[in-house]
């Protein structure tokens, strides 16, 4: 390795971009977008994320979590409508993912926690439902709530009917109108109570309750036994929120790295090969290792520089965060490996361009399909799964001044391992095929 050769090769890369200003123009556009985003961020929104709307209008998945596997939970499991089957997942609260004892949900996932609270003395109990929706978007779980309330009511009617109480007409439940829900439930309770009283007077209810094994004393208070109280509480999920601005900045940062390492590096390299300039360099004192090293230094450095500029425009404090730099380095390593692999496999500039595009599309499709169908593990093999997560975590923690979680560090490790894996693939391919 000769320093003067590496310097000359790096200077050549830079001079080529100065002479062909397309790459620099796109970099400037990305920076301009970051500036506009920073300027358009409402005062205070960058810090603390107060009042920011969620990135998505709804959630892709809903976790129904329960403390005990009751008959009601079984009823819910058996009555998930086909259109929500892919989205609704059941999980005991004991197996919920927690960070420092606090239940956390993956991005794009909301939670419906169902607990049955009993005082241990009377047979009466309360079904406690907690709706965990994205901050600032209380209606995000509307379709799931609508299903839950409907099934809750059906289950109760069925219970009452089992005890000989005719079910009342079904009200129009509306997940966005909680008061209406509560009132409807109250009315439902009253109706059942009234029916129970009438039946008790005629002796029907007493006989039915006795047949069902309930104490006669409890049966006379009918309503409490047939329909429990309902307590609904709505709360926004705490902690970091995928805010629109932070998400866009994350996207710009990831794109800056992708653009330099997976697009510019392979296309310009293949252009040099097509023109024969790569051969001219290979016949000069520059060794193949020096040529590769210069490119491997220039493009990730340019990408990291651009990405850091974009992130710093949004939140300057991020530059002091080691996690951010580690995230950039990991993602850049992964993209560099991908770019070098494409450089080795593609013979022409057009093939390199198409290779980059095909890769992007394939990974996007894979992640989308895996996300929609809840396919596990497969996304863990893509840099694009971990990259945005760690970069967003870095940006969010810098903005909100919050601690990074253990999950963030695991994601960083995942990105770093993928980076090493891609670089290994690229180096092995280069040794076997070279760039000629």
């Amino acid at each position, binding site marked *: 390795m000769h320093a003067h050769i590496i*310097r000359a090769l790096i200077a050549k890369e830079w001079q080529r971009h100065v*002479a062909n200003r397309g790459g620099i123009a796109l970099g400037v556009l990305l920076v301009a977008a970051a500036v506009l985003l920073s300027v358009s961020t409402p005062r205070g929104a960058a810090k603390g994320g107060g009042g920011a709307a969620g990135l998505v209008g709804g959630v892709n998945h809903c976790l129904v979590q329960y403390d005990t596997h009751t008959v009601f939970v079984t009823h819910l499991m058996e009555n998930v409508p086909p259109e929500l089957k892919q989205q609704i997942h059941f999980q005991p609260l004991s197996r919920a993912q927690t960070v420092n004892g606090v239940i956390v949900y993956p991005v794009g996932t909301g939670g419906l926690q169902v607990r049955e609270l009993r005082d241990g003395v009377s047979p009466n109990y309360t079904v406690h439902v907690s709706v965990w929706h994205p901050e600032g978007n209380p209606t995000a779980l509307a379709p799931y709530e609508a299903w839950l309330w409907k099934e809750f009511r059906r289950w109760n009617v069925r219970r009452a009917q089992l005890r000989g109480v005719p079910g009342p007409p079904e009200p129009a439940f509306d997940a966005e109108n909680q008061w209406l829900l509560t009132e409807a439930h109250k009315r439902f309770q009253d109706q059942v109570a009234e029916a129970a009283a009438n039946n008790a007077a005629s002796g029907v209810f007493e006989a039915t309750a006795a047949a069902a094994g309930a104490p006669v004393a409890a049966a006379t208070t009918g309503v409490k036994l047939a329909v429990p109280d309902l307590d609904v509480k709505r709360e926004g999920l705490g902690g970091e929120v995928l805010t629109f601005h932070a998400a866009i900045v994350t996207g710009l940062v990831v794109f800056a790295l992708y653009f330099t390492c997976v697009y510019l590096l392979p296309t310009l390299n293949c252009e040099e090969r097509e023109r*024969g*300039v790569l051969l*001219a360099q290979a*016949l*000069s004192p520059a060794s193949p290792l020096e040529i590769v090293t210069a490119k491997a230094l220039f493009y990730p450095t340019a990408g990291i520089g651009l990405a850091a500029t974009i992130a710093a425009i949004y939140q300057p404090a991020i530059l002091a965060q080691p996690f951010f730099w580690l995230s950039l380095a990991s993602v850049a390593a992964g993209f560099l490996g991908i770019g070098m692999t494409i450089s080795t496999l593609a013979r022409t500039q057009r093939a390199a361009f198409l290779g980059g595009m095909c890769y992007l599309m394939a990974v996007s499709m894979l992640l989308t399909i895996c996300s929609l169908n809840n396919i596990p593990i497969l996304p863990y093999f893509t840099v694009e799964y971990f990259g945005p997560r760690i970069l967003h975590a870095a940006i969010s923690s810098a903005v909100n001044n919050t601690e990074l979680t253990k999950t963030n560090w695991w994601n960083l490790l995942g990105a770093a391992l993928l980076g090493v894996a891609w670089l290994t693939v690229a180096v092995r391919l280069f040794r076997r095929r070279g760039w000629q």
Partner: protein
Amino acid sequence: MTTPDTMIALRGLRVLYGAFAAVDGLDLDIRRGELFGLLGPNGAGKSTTIRVLIGQRAPSAGVVTVGGFDVAREWAKVKPLFGYVPDRENHFEEFTGRRNLEFFARLYNVPRERCLTVLKLVELDEAANLPVRGYSLGMRKKLLLARALLHEPQVMYLDEPTANLDIHSAEVVHRILRDRVKHGATVVLTTHNMEEVEQICDRVGIVCRGKLVALDSPLALKQAHTERKVDVTRNDGERAVYDLDTETGLKGLSELVATGQVATMRTREFDFHATFLKLTGLAFD
């Protein structure tokens, strides 16, 4: 047997593309300070031989040494020894001529001033600061030569160096090559221009179907292989060929000259073109 005078030695060189032998057992010694022409019809194996010499193709069999170093095993030592002018230009289009040379000058670790010297040498100094994308084919070719001259290599490989050049530029190239040879460099060129071969080459190797079919100076080759025939155009427009090695031919030509019927007359004695065609088996009957 390699002598101390030998700069490039090819021993039993064989290059296979699948089952096809592009070069088939080539033995050749090229001396120091020699301007050597490698000739042959299309597909004869010239370019493949050059590709082996510049390390871009591994020999299937045989050994190739340059300056005493094995091209396959001591590539790092061979690389600084040579300059290469490809048949297809390969410049950074977006750079000026000078910047192109400056980049390679940095790789070769030669002073920047050398760029202007070689640009002057190939008469491109006035166009030095123009982008290469505006250069003509001839200018691009001359820039390739300038690049190959940057580090004053001991060996130069040139693939059709005067293709697309005007007469004056071709003369400039010839002058530069002769000058390099005068300073002890070895020059190997491939060309289809027979006049150029006759004009500047010290020795010529003619390859055909991957084999060396002739090796000598252009003059010696002509003398050894040319036909002693005379092409005559008579005053009435009729054309005839007289073989000087036959009595009939000699007698017929004498009568024609004596009766004053000859309009034009041309001997084939020093026709290198015909020699080449004869040696490669491509001459028309």
